């Protein structure tokens, strides 16, 4: 079989996907994002300006610095999961929503 001719590169701007944005998803994403920013900023502020609070041991024999740090990692996972569950699947352009 003769080799196939080289494929031309699509002219710019090529529509990379026929999908359109789902505004509800973007709104939900921004809300969760703001929530995480507050958590993260609180951590930075405490670590930088109130290290004595970070050294306190509220429960479980583990100090706030460790609890808050682990909490930031775990809450990122929970927010991500929440987002994945609540998001609507994007529709294709021209298709029905």
């Amino acid at each position: 079989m003769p080799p196939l001719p080289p494929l031309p590169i699509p002219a710019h701007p090529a529509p990379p996907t026929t999908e359109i944005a789902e505004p509800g998803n973007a709104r939900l994403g921004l809300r969760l994002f703001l929530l995480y920013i507050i958590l993260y900023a609180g951590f930075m502020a405490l670590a930088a300006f109130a290290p004595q609070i970070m050294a306190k041991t509220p429960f479980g024999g583990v100090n706030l610095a460790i609890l808050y740090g682990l909490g930031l990692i775990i809450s990122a996972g929970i927010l991500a999961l929440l987002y994945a569950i609540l998001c609507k699947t994007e529709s294709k352009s021209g298709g029905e929503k």
Partner: protein
Amino acid sequence: MIYQFSWNAFLIFAFFVAVVLGLSFYLGRKARSAKGFFAAHGQVHWFVNGIAFAGDYLSAASFLGICGMIAWYGYDGFLYSIGYLAGWIVALFVIAEPIKRLGRFTFADALDSKFNSRAIKLTAAISTLVVSTFYLIPQMVGAGTLIQPLLGFSYTTGVILVGVVVIIIVVTAGMVSTTWVQFIKGSLLVIFCTILVGLILNRGIIAHPEAATMGIQTLVEAQGGKVTNDHPQGRGPGQGDLSPVGHVVRLPGDVKETGPLGPFKFLSTLQKSDVLLWSSKKTLENGVSVTRFTPKVVKGEEVMTPGASPTFAGIRKDNLWAKLDFISLMLALFCGTASLPHILIRYYTVKDQAAARKSTVVGIGAIGFFYVLTLFLGLGAMTSGAMDVTNNNMAAPLLARTFSQTLFAIISAIAFTTVLGTVSGLIMAAAGAVAHDLMTNLFKVTDHEHGQVMWGKIAAVVVGIVAMALGIVFRDFNVSFLVGWAFNVAASANLPSLVMLLFWKKTTSAGIAAAITTGIVSSLAWILMSGQAYKDIYHWDPAAAIVPFSQPGLVTIPLGFVVLIAVSLMTSRKVVEREAIMVA
């Protein structure tokens, strides 16, 4: 410390490399089109892509650097884990879906999707090359530094070995093989670190009160060889070596050992214990390098709070600039992840926005879990009694050796596979920028897919060779310094444009190009004028530095936004006026 060549480690690593290369040659047939080479046909399953995100992101700095920093200073290493993971929140909630929707192969596609601007293509490609190169250097330095103790080869051999293997991976099957290498590496890393943490908790903590009597250790490096603690370094008669470090000298209740502990009990027990930590100071005496390692008993509660390491010591001082330096680094880590080109290109390997979203969630799960493990790995190393006082990057492999030689071999081999996975992603990002953004879209050197793939392969070889050369030149450079540098430059150069393109309709192409240029130039200039550069690069007094703190992000990320808004407002008026004239 003296390391013995381990045949097990070598054979396991050789097996990994053989599997990875075999896979690349097998997959090579499937990656001949541009979409195949640059984006793995956009057909990678979201779960595989999510684990590949972990394989792409968890570099040697994450695995070895963070474990070492926690083992040496405690909590401060964990600050990096927190910041590196938080960055994924920006990726998921702000960047993931639009970047998938708007781009084809590179993030320049997404930035340029509305404009078809030569300035955006050029600046975005330069930004990709600059950020990827800065990220490549520490990976190569890490490979060279580790190969000697782990596999017994020289530094240069390590750098060349990694460079050659990665070039073969990328040239044979581009993003297809890169994806699978990263998937294998991400899986191995998470699985074996989980096993290691299980073993740490099962062993519990053992007290070594006798370690409290350890004195200062010395290492003298002269041309004739090394002298450790007044004996020539070696295993023969009359020779000696540095003693291994990393001991708990007192447990709560003065017990000898705790027995198996749960994760929280492990942390709370360590918080109430006393540990022996080491600091080092290197001096030149009569042309001979002398390093003194000084032990100090430190309370566990101090080790488990931020500010114990030299990097973050400013947190505990009453100096505002030092505190701002810490905030600036945490901001750069937060904003940098979603701005790293080698991470962004992974969004083009899945089929749609839903898959992009789901794979990011899987990535956050795997990466977050791994970063929780780093805390236990680091603290496990701190209390293992087996650390090399001269090299904290060896903390994780040496910790594994306290359980078995086989585990040491596996963890060592995984450390190398770690470098392979990340370097492949970085070279792919750089190759995409050269072949797709510059050669095809900007300079129109090629107009068919075969040409584009060929340029991608040429670029991969050239970037790979440059990376090897830089790895050899930057041999003595501080690895974590360079990784922080890459995050700062990426966040300053790319994040303002990505965010404003999505959320501000008045953004213009001139605004984006100006913001990228300002971000690169200002962050690099700030770093070169910082106290850290004065100390580490020029060997000058850091107090004389021009800028008040070392990490630029706090200033240069907002600066990118300001420049983008100002230039967009100025240029959008011109566009409106031009359109008005044409209508009239």
